[in-house]
């Protein structure tokens, strides 16, 4: 895919057992090559540059995670949230008990290998943004789509409260129970699916870091179409073999057309033909109470900058405005700004990336109204005096979606 990181940039992640300081693993964003622990020193010393940011966090007095980033523009917020996601990923696949009560370091290291793929996806250039926003990446199904009803009926039939349809790591439709999953599992579960190689079906034991960190649930995934998976979070029932192809066909074959249409939506996030201003190159809409987001860099995809660059711009802009301008998000334990205002007051800010002469520099505008926060990336042609009204109109158009 030719992802370019910032010039010379890399992110290194190190996990240690807090009490003994024994390294449990080391991951790096450089080409996704896992770093062997005996080469630990060599790897870390290569990250010693002037621009290296280091953030560390200890979890339950048992696990310490350290991240070193030599990429430009990495804020502390970004790195702190990365560590929270990484620890969440470790709990998801190994369980909190194993991490807080380390009886056998070698066995724990072996078990943690199962989480490498997921952790590496946080260090790479993902199309998703839930790791940073801690809101679930969503896709809006075509209007009037019968998918939601079919999903609810399927959930009743299988007696499972937690069922969802996931397209390329984004939630397309879900039961109420699934939407009520806490952070970080609400973000981690679809993200996990997006990071795994395709399989027809899976039956994975998972621990929910917020809801059930020591007692595992079963995550069943069934590929309905390439790129579209049906997910169930359940106890001992139903067995995977009970969800056989004949049963699934009888439920989902009638919905083949809307399902196929939804697969194509994936990175676009919005229904096909949703009217967006032509200057919009990227969009991030967050609903901070529902903890869901829409993220797309597809509009006018043939124009500069590249999709990878657009994502990077929006991610950096999000980190900037979240940590410095907007009121702290509900439910997240972060620093409270002295000048924080009530969330009902609309707030907006914009940033031009590059010189401010007309026709140059990407425009980034952010607007918050109530629980919704909208960030837009706009082309250089977009006049700066019109940014706020453009953002306001776009937010009004998007508000019915969630």
């Amino acid at each position, binding site marked *: 895919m030719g992802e370019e990181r910032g010039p010379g940039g890399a992110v290194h992640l190190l996990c240690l057992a807090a009490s003994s300081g024994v390294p449990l693993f080391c991951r790096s964003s450089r080409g996704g090559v896992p770093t062997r622990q005996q080469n630990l020193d060599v790897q870390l010393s290569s990250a010693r540059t002037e621009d290296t940011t280091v953030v560390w966090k200890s979890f339950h007095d048992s696990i310490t995670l350290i991240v070193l980033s030599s990429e430009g523009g990495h804020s502390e917020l970004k790195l702190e949230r990365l560590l929270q996601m990484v620890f969440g990923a470790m709990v998801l696949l190994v369980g909190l008990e194993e991490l807080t009560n380390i009886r056998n370091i070698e066995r724990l290291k*072996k078990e943690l290998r199962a989480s490498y*793929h997921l952790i590496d996806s946080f260090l*790479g250039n993902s199309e998703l943004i839930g790791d940073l926003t801690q809101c679930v990446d969503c896709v809006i199904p075509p209007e009037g789509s019968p998918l939601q009803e079919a999903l609810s009926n399927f959930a009743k039939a299988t007696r499972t409260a937690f069922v969802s349809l996931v397209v390329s790591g984004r939630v397309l439709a879900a039961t109420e129970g699934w939407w009520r999953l806490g952070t970080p599992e609400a973000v981690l579960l679809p993200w996990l699916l997006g*990071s795994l*190689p*395709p399989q027809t079906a*899976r*039956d994975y034991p998972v621990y929910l870091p917020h809801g059930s960190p020591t007692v595992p649930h079963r995550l069943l995934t069934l590929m*309905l179409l*390439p790129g579209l998976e049906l997910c169930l979070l359940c106890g001992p029932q139903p067995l995977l073999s009970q969800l056989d192809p004949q049963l699934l066909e009888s439920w989902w074959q009638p919905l083949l057309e809307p399902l196929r249409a939804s697969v194509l939506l994936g990175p676009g996030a919005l229904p096909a033909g949703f009217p967006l201003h032509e200057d919009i190159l990227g969009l991030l809409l967050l609903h901070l109470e529902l903890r869901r987001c829409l993220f797309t860099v597809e509009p006018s995809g043939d124009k500069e900058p590249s999709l990878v660059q657009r994502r990077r711009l929006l991610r950096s802009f999000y980190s900037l405005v979240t940590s410095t301008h907007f009121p702290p998000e509900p439910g997240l334990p972060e620093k409270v700004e002295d000048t924080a205002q009530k969330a009902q007051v609309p707030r907006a800010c914009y940033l031009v990336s590059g010189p401010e002469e007309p026709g140059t520099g990407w425009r980034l505008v952010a607007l918050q109204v109530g629980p919704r926060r909208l960030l837009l990336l706009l082309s250089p042609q977009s006049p700066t005096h019109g940014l706020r009204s453009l953002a306001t109109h776009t937010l009004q158009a998007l508000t019915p979606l969630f």
Partner: protein
Amino acid sequence: MAKPPAPGSVLVPDWHESAEGKEYLRCILRKSRRRVFGECLSPVTSVTCCSLQGAEESVGKGSLVAKAHKLLLPSPHHAKWLPRPSTGIQTTVVFWPAKLQASSRVVMFRFEFWDCGESALTKFDHMLPACQEKADAFLFLFSFTDRASFEDLPGQLARVTGEAPGAVKMVIGSKFDQYMHTDVPEQDLRAFRQAWELPLLRVKSVPGRRLADGRTLDGWAGLADMAHVLNSLAEHLWHQDQVAAGLLASSPENTPD
């Protein structure tokens, strides 16, 4: 249980290399890459389930299935799919056309491979019964470079024979190409064959050839690598079905349909 059929007695061997065979294979490849079939799109004609058994994570079960399926959809972060230890049960569907000797009819087999990570099997009680339930065949994997995995086979075979006496059993030795490091000499294999009378196949573990782009696995080459395993599996399963349906006695001769 009836004696296993002699190789090539049920299905036309090397049929996949014939012009006719290649036409059928084309429908499971698209532009020389394996297609991914989802549940809803499966053209089901023959449904069988196989369970992969292997002592150690590193035996190569994941790679075996990956090779048979020849899936190479680049993840968002890596150009190559890297095998990883599985944390639970994973199933993969593989389609394989084969031509019957007796009737010259072509049957499309749909294999559902069930694979479970060893650490998950030991940690969670429900995994093993879930994998073994309704399985038509068990594939026992060992690695030529890991003696312990070979020595574990009798124990595994005995357990499965007790629990599922009617199922097809096949043994597959992986990493056969790493002959410099082999820990399992020929005479041990011969002794094993004589003791158990089970088909024993060998597979390489090198990544398959790639297409001109240097990244995508060559689907045709991958199929050629795995054809003997899939043919053998199809042959044994078809024979087993025939015996179970009372169409055959203990001899492997086919009756015309």
